[in-house]
């Protein structure tokens, strides 16, 4: 189950992928701390750590679910929508427990859907949210095993469907219960206030517990072994007497559960639920974390530690950029994630690539790829430098130089290869 790279550097006791990510995280943190003129990472390390932890924990919780599904050979695209859905369910259930006087207190309260609610209500609401996660998981399993939809299609359907279902539900129920429909519910109970206060610790703990549980399941139980088996060779697993459908049921429900929990935290964190906008594209980051952490989309390969570190890595880099680029860093978030994913997966495969005699830029395709890549690189660096102190002026120069240099390097590789092919 360990990544094939396990062969080289055999003397090193720990799995290589995980080690590499860990080192990368440390490196990024230190370098950023040094480059950042305010050295926030050193001066305000606690605040920064909190900041990173809060996001990493949330992402990690979802990534755990995603990784289990990926290992069993499926894919869950619905996490983001699932988060929105569970949060909405939670809020709506609480709505039914709002005391009359709150409702009586003028239209404002209802318009923006201010909710304060009894302890029982909160409890039931959270149970409801978790249940919603399990139900969606069951639905996925049903579509995948009984109707034999490819997991991609099944979860694509819920990805687009659940969010709008949540919106519709929200409009409908608020209308029925408050008389005025709204797509946004403000949740402001003392409990969730408390949760928001201590969010960092609680979500981190929950994440760690979940991670531990997942680790035990995957690497210490029969179920876990079966999960890897199915991901590796489903038909063989069936013929070895594994009830593949039930194992998948667990996987998808677990993923749904994780998203549901994340949904509760996110709701507490935002103190408002707005399904239309909540946690958009979260699934992409979750899958990215799993992939960066060494999970293979073919299934059968992946570890909990890797996934957790993957999530942490993503968040650290995103946060680091926010520290370096003072304003509007979120513009670059997507680029960062994209690049990390490509680089990470490439590096895990690098050993095999370098061994095999495969060319990086074969034939015309290669010749076309080279300028493309160089141009992209140049553009990125240029943008970057515009935001970074040194070399802010003479941007064009920087851009052109980078482009040309990468062009030269790649062309050189190309030449080498085509020479070697002779």
């Amino acid at each position: 189950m360990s990544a094939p790279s396990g062969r080289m550097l055999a003397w090193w006791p720990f799995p290589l992928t995980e080690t590499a990510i860990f080192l990368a995280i440390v490196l990024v943190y230190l370098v950023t701390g040094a480059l950042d003129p305010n050295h926030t990472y050193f001066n305000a390390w606690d605040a920064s750590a909190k900041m990173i932890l809060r996001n990493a924990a949330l992402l990690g919780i979802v990534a755990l679910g995603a990784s289990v599904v990926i290992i069993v050979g499926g894919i869950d695209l619905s996490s983001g929508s699932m988060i929105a859905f569970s949060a909405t369910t939670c809020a709506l259930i609480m709505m039914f427990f709002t005391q009359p006087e709150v409702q009586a207190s003028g239209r404002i309260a209802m318009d923006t859907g201010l909710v304060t609610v009894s302890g029982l209500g909160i409890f039931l609401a959270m149970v409801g949210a978790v249940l919603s996660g399990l139900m969606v998981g069951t639905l996925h399993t049903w579509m995948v095993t009984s109707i034999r939809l490819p997991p991609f299609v099944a979860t694509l359907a819920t990805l687009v469907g659940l969010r709008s279902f949540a919106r519709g539900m929200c409009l409908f129920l608020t209308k029925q219960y408050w008389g005025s429909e709204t797509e946004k519910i403000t949740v402001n109970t003392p409990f969730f206030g408390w949760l928001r206060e201590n969010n960092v610790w609680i979500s981190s703990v929950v994440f760690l517990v979940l991670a531990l549980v997942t680790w035990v399941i995957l690497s210490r139980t029969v179920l876990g072994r079966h999960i890897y088996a199915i991901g590796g060779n489903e038909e063989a697993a069936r013929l070895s007497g594994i009830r593949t459908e039930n194992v998948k049921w667990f996987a998808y429900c677990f993923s749904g559960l994780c998203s549901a929990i994340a949904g509760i935290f996110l709701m507490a964190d935002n103190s408002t639920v707005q399904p239309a906008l909540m946690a958009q594209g979260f699934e992409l980051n979750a899958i990215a974390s799993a992939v960066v952490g060494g999970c293979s989309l073919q299934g059968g390969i992946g570890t909990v530690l890797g996934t957790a570190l993957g999530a942490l890595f993503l968040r650290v880099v995103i946060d680091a950029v926010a520290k370096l680029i003072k304003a509007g860093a979120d513009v670059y978030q997507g680029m960062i994630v994209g690049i990390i994913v490509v680089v990470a997966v490439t590096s895990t495969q690098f050993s095999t690539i370098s061994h095999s005699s495969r060319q990086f830029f074969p034939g015309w395709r290669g010749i076309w790829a080279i300028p493309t890549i160089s141009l992209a690189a140049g553009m990125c660096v240029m943008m970057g430098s515009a935001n970074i102190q040194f070399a802010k002026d003479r941007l064009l120069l920087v851009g052109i130089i980078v482009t040309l240099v990468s062009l030269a390097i790649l062309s050189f590789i190309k030449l080498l290869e085509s020479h070697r092919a002779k």
Partner: protein
Amino acid sequence: MQPIIQIRSITKTYPGVVALKDVSLDILPGELHAICGENGAGKSTLMKILSGVVGSYEGELHVGGKLVQFGGTRAAEEAGISIIHQELNLVEQLSAAANIFLGRELRTSLGFRDDRAMEQAAEHLFRELECNIGAKQPVSELRVGDQQLIEIAKALSLSSEILIMDEPTSALTESEVERLYRVIARLRARGVTILYISHKMDEVFRLSDRITILRDGRTVQTLVTKETNAQQITQLMVGREIAALDLGTERTPGEVVLQVEKLRLPWPGHARQWRLKDISFELRQGEILGIAGLMGAGRTELLECLFGAAHDPVQGTIRLHGKVQQFAHPIEACEAGIAMVTEDRKRLGIFAEMNVGQNISLCQLKEATTAGLVSSQREEAMSQSMLQSLAVKTAGLVARITSLSGGNQQKCIIGRWLLTKPTVLLLDDPTRGVDVGAKAELYRLMDRLCREGLAIIITSSELPELLTVSDRILVLSEGRQTAMFSRAEATEHRILEAATKGYAEAAQAN
């Protein structure tokens, strides 16, 4: 005579494995040159190099006197070399004709694809092969044997003067094999040079002029067929003496373990409504029941039915230890004490991502748990015991299963099932693609298990094998039980007769 192919000290290494080591070999024009060797000896790898599938290697390759280095299959074809691969390489969604001309499609004058021309050409090829396959028929609807024939037709369509056949008959019915022989004869008359790989000695001796033996990626020796015999060849292949087998003698069957009556397996939406029809037999403790039949006769289905792995509901009654059973899922059969080693290791047997130990312990992992948690020591102990009792050649429990030779992989899978302490063991074609050495060991293993009180059902595509190992032989033809021979009665001829009974009508059917 100037050899048409000269292989000069070719070496090919894969990460971890040395597939070929300093192989040198001459092929004379017009001869049929057989290549023999154990699994993993490097036969296919060598052929892949010859046919340009594998591009990078050390050493020299001369074709027709010229030094060549093929960049791809296309280059090899231009040099006049075509290959029939060991595994089927067909696109199931496409028609037979499309597959034959894949990569070499005929074009109209306008540069568009000329499907009609290709279909006509395909029809012609099929006529030459004496088989009735519709050129328009999607490959997915064809029997495995016909698919293999398409591969052959594909290679013939190149009408190249060097033809490589890597175990072409492994999926063919006896009659189809005969046809193939006729085709080969015609080709040789045309002066085509043929390299022929097979694990079946009778074929090798019937067809070849010369035989080259590979062992562990090295050329051992090249012999002229007339001047040698099977013993010598197998000995050279394995590198040691193989004791002649005397199995099955004085095995005393115990009481009835498994009893099957009027077993039927429907085949919805198919002209022939039954995959299996009215199968009845009984299996005794300490007995090996062989199931013979042509490819597609329903042997696998039959075993799947007994194992609860069939995709459709099984009709008829299955009694295990006198108790009627209705298995809906393999796990139920497994718990009832039936174990099944599936055909086609690569696809249905091994878990490539898992190491040897995990592959062996998979089915019995529960036994190694305490409070729901797997204890790795007990798991290892479990697997280790099997490694020893089956004498599996491996670097250890943590070795990747894919690094083992076919025979040893098969042993691991048998071990996986023996751990479940079954009373009935189903073996579906356990020796397909397994070399003679490993085969012999497997036979002994079966014999031993049998004497230890296990009841075994084995299917095989090779009659000699069945005749060696089994006490009784059940013959299937097109899903119907056409005969049941005791060891004494059974001869190749009678079995073949029974196996081909009613095969003709079926041939018309599709």
